[in-house]
């Protein structure tokens, strides 16, 4: 794929990887700090979406389509993980209804 704009594509790939990494760092801040359990689940879900994007960018960068298979498998596993975490959170809270969640806005 060497043609017009090949250098622009390489620059775009580098910048996009940088943006995705910055996004992952910001999501990690919310994952560590976030006051409630639901905030952490939301941050984890977004970070997994960013990892899928990063795998796609790596597939362009390396020219290897194997990364797309990894991205598909990762998206599936992240979806199942988010759903199971959310359901676990709901049931766990229902089982100990005497205690209140301390959740600052």
């Amino acid at each position, binding site marked *: 794929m060497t043609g017009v704009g090949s250098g622009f594509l390489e620059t775009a790939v580098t*910048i*996009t990887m940088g943006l995705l990494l910055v996004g992952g760092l910001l999501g990690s801040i919310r994952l560590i700090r976030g006051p409630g359990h639901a905030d952490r689940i939301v941050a984890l879900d977004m970070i997994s979406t960013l990892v899928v994007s990063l795998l796609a960018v790596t597939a362009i960068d390396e020219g290897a389509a194997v990364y797309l298979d990894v991205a598909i498998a990762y998206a599936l596993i992240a*979806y199942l993980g988010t759903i199971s975490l*959310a359901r676990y959170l709901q049931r766990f809270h*229902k089982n100990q209804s005497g205690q209140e969640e301390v959740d600052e806005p």
Partner: protein
Amino acid sequence: MIAILTGILLLCGGTLAAAAALGIVRLPDTFMRMHASTKAGTLGAGLILLAVAIHTPDTGVALRALLTSLFLLLTAPVSAHIVGRAAYHIGTRMWQKTWKDDLAEACGLDDVPPGHPGGIPEGCDSSDN
């Protein structure tokens, strides 16, 4: 030409993903954070996967990229719905300036203050799990 289009799509997707992460950090409320991550994050990933589909000369690889994007578009609302329901169930506080809570109104709690602790009262729980 294809390289330039791919680059533009990549930059748009990366910017949207970074905006989603910024929203995750800056927005004041769990539900607003879900708004940022679900919509902007999924759109960013979809644009990047579309860039892969345009860039590759192989039809199978392009099909796989489009299928991944379709999978993300299908699963993001479902997981957001389940996470939001769990967050409401456990009584996550809303933002102080929230003025609309349709589920509490449907449950007959008309006098709830804005940003109340939430949670679904007894007898108004339509889901069994």
